[in-house]
């Protein structure tokens, strides 16, 4: 018992240096410059939720979707995308995508009958692509009426997507829905919705960004059963040629969450702790910017306004997670509590 008291004291001292922030349940506070946090919740439990953090007032608002709409967000909220005045939230295991008003969060529409949707990316006002873990094709929808208008057969499972000019790069993260190895980036022409190319990289590409020099960066974890070394790839966006491959030293590690800063010249990712490197570096950095310590870093995001670093700690995946907010130099600004498994950020900048 004595040991426990000492332990609690030391923990409370540890946290007293950082500011604990207030919790609020008012939705009036959705201002510019804040961040939406989608909390995945637990698979088949349907305890996903939506939180919002306003850095100016330091107010956290939780469980907002339920408060406004009186309906739970669903089973495993996977991703959030802001498109003009609407917010789209992809609910993976519910097979639906909700669109809600960006200011009031009121229900606007729904795309349903999806198999295992992961992300939505907007091509134009009339067209959006939806990637899907359990389907071998991309679903094409019309965002104005939420109708499914077509499919793009890839022959592979799809996950994260980035758009560059009239090409969409689609990561083949999982080996569901295919017999082949999950080690490609598929390229789709968004004018004619045709699969045009496939770039072979490492196993399990989990995140992608485009830098200021028009290069595509892809981070591969090497497989969840540690099939191969984790890798980072630099790819020419025009020729689809690989410029450089970086190989991580430890096969046990599963680096993910590749992000890029506002100026497009520094890469950030999670490899236990937060790691940062320049797009011109010739090798992977040895040092962490932010050590994980005894936390369970799950999600990384960069606010595009002042490049603040947001990292989520999913703790034991069964209790409310914590978001840590750091300055670009790795100095802790504050931390705040959100829902279970904070899994996606959307920075609310106009």
């Amino acid at each position, binding site marked *: 018992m004595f040991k426990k008291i000492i332990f609690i004291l030391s923990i409370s001292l540890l946290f007293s240096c950082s500011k604990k922030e207030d919790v609020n349940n008012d939705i009036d506070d959705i201002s510019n410059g804040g961040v939406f946090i989608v909390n995945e919740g637990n698979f088949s*439990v349907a305890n996903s939720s939506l939180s919002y953090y306003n850095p100016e007032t330091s107010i956290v608002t939780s469980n907002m979707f*339920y408060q406004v709409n009186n309906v739970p967000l669903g089973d495993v909220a996977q991703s959030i995308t802001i498109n003009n005045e609407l917010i789209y939230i992809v609910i993976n295991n519910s*097979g639906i995508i909700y669109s809600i008003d960006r200011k009031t969060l009121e*229900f606007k529409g729904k795309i349903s009958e999806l198999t*295992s949707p992961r992300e939505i990316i907007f091509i134009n006002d009339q067209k959006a692509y939806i990637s899907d873990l359990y389907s071998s094709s991309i679903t094409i929808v019309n965002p104005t009426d939420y109708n499914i208008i077509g499919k793009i057969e890839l022959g592979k499972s799809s996950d994260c997507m980035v758009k560059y000019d009239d090409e969409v790069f689609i990561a083949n993260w999982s080996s569901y829905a295919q017999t082949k190895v999950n080690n490609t980036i598929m390229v789709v022409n968004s004018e004619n919705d045709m699969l045009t190319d496939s770039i072979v990289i490492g196993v399990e590409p989990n995140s992608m960004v485009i830098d200021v020099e028009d290069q595509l960066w892809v981070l591969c974890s090497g497989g969840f059963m540690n099939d191969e070394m984790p890798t980072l790839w630099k790819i020419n966006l025009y020729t689809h040629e690989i410029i450089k491959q970086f190989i991580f030293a430890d096969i046990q590690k599963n680096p993910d969450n590749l992000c890029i800063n506002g100026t497009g010249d520094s890469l950030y990712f999670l490899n236990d702790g937060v790691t940062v490197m320049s797009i011109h570096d010739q090798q992977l950095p040895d040092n962490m910017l932010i050590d994980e310590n005894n936390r369970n870093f799950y999600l990384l995001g960069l606010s595009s306004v002042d490049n603040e670093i947001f990292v989520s700690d999913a703790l034991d995946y069964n209790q409310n997670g914590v978001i840590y907010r750091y300055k670009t130099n790795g100095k802790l600004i504050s931390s705040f509590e959100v829902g*279970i498994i904070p899994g996606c950020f959307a920075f609310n900048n106009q």
Partner: protein
Amino acid sequence: MIFDTLFLSELEVIGNIDDFSSPTKVTTIDSIAQKELNLHDIGELLAAFSPVFVKSYGRGSLSTVSFRGAGASHTKVLWEGVNINSPMLGQTDFSLLPGSFFDEIDLQYGSGSLSQVSGALGGSVNLVSNGIKNDNQIVVQQSIGSFSTYLTSAAVYLNNSNFYSSTRFIRQSSLNNFTYFNNAILPSGDDMTQSNANFTNLGFTQQFLYNISGKQQISFITWNQWNTRNIPPIMTNVEKGGNQIEWNNDFFSRNVLKWVLYNENTRWEAVGAYFYEELDYFLETEDELNSPISLIDSQNKVETYSFAWNVSSELFENLFFDAGMEMLQQEVNSNNYLKKKQRNSLSNYINLKKIFNNKITVEGLLRAENVDGELLPLMPMLGINYKPVANQNFNFRINGSKNYNIPSLNDLYWYPGGNANLKPEESFEVEVGLDYVTMFSKKHNIAISASAYSSLINDWIIWLPGDYRYWSPKNIAEVYARGGELSLRISGEFGEVGYNIFSEYAYTLTTNNSDSAMASGLSDVQLMYVPVHTANGYVNVNYGGYYANWNLSYTSSRNTSLNNDEDYSFPLPQYVLNNISLGKKINLKKAKFDVRFKVFNIFDVDYQAILWRAMPGRNYEFSLSFTL
């Protein structure tokens, strides 16, 4: 209770207390209550008539039972004295235990079952199928209920003084397509029909018993059952694409051969058992062309061989001795394990009980268990029962025990994630209680029972998502469970009118006091899905063959996440369910008929036992029973 068979004739069963001299708490489900739900499963029966907590995913779906704030795998189920918990899961699905197969259901709270099984950190449920009828008898029952639910049950009992046979059969099927209000998907406000929730159970038991002599008996019983059920989507997932197919099929065959010899003050018993189980879980998602994309086809076969013997004797006057040994081998062949896995265990126990001056009973038990060559720490239990007034059934009891629950084979070997380095879960429990039974005006029986307990479970195994996508179990929680139970039973008659009133209440506080829970400020939060209050009441009135029953059960709110903060999570609200039944017993010469009409959830309460799992509103059942 150890001496039940030997001293059965000496025992007077009043109320629901079996053995007044026992220092541990044992209750028996009353036969009237049992009859009320004998066309349902044991999970439904316990939810309505006992203070244990039943976590049910809906009728026909998985149903688990927990005692005193412990987990479902800390409830051991014994059938004919042999543990039937799945070696893979460590728990028992109570929806697969048909009420009509059992003659007696005993609940043993805490570690009082240490003579039979280890690991019952919460308690154990004893199912007895061995009900010998005095005459040849045929029983046929048929019920028809809402949502196309049909149950046929039949039994034939033959008794030829030295040879006895009982045969029981059930077939149950339901579309289970009830309508519910779905407030879990937008746009909300629609009534929906539950889909993919149909189930079928088909089973039989056959028992033969032969009296070799007046003092020697041999018996064989087999229980075989085929269960098929589809698994419905949760309320948020009803619009999911991909034509998802999800089902669970299982088959089991449980066979027990038993030899008993009575010899003066001594009873010898040898029991051999062979269990075979097949469990298949299937989940498939299809694409637009109906070809499968993702597939889980989990096929598991489990074989259990056990041999046990025990001897019980009155060594000297009022000194009782009981000892036994069990050898157990479990073998799992699963496509979720890397290879075939086996577990061998050898357990021994010794129990001594001394009664002083017919007032004080002292009982001590020691259990030793060796699992796969490793000796678990000893499991002791010590208890005292005190009866202060000679001619009054007024007893105090106190007991303390230490118990271990070994990890399930899935905990150890599931691929990926299984953790072969898990330690057994360890519990320390103390319990005090009192039982009082009295009669007034020679026509009314009152039984009151109260218990309080406190238990600490260390190294509680919890599956947590690991660093990468698959879950893995760890000895993580330190659970402190404490609480109490109250029970009141009154039965009697006013002239021609007979009545029974039963009520039970349980108060359960259960928290995780591990260092990590304390550090995150969660050590005061009630564990998920354990209600602080549960209560039930039952009133039965009968007159001239007519009878009316009313049953009420209350479950207080439950946390569905580790954080109980309403700003973040969805605590499930409390609910009260009311069921009534009306019936008439008719005797035509030797034939007896019983016609019964039941209404479940009469107030059409919209509730969830588990988050976003739909439950049926008001529903009906009509049954006819015929006995010759």
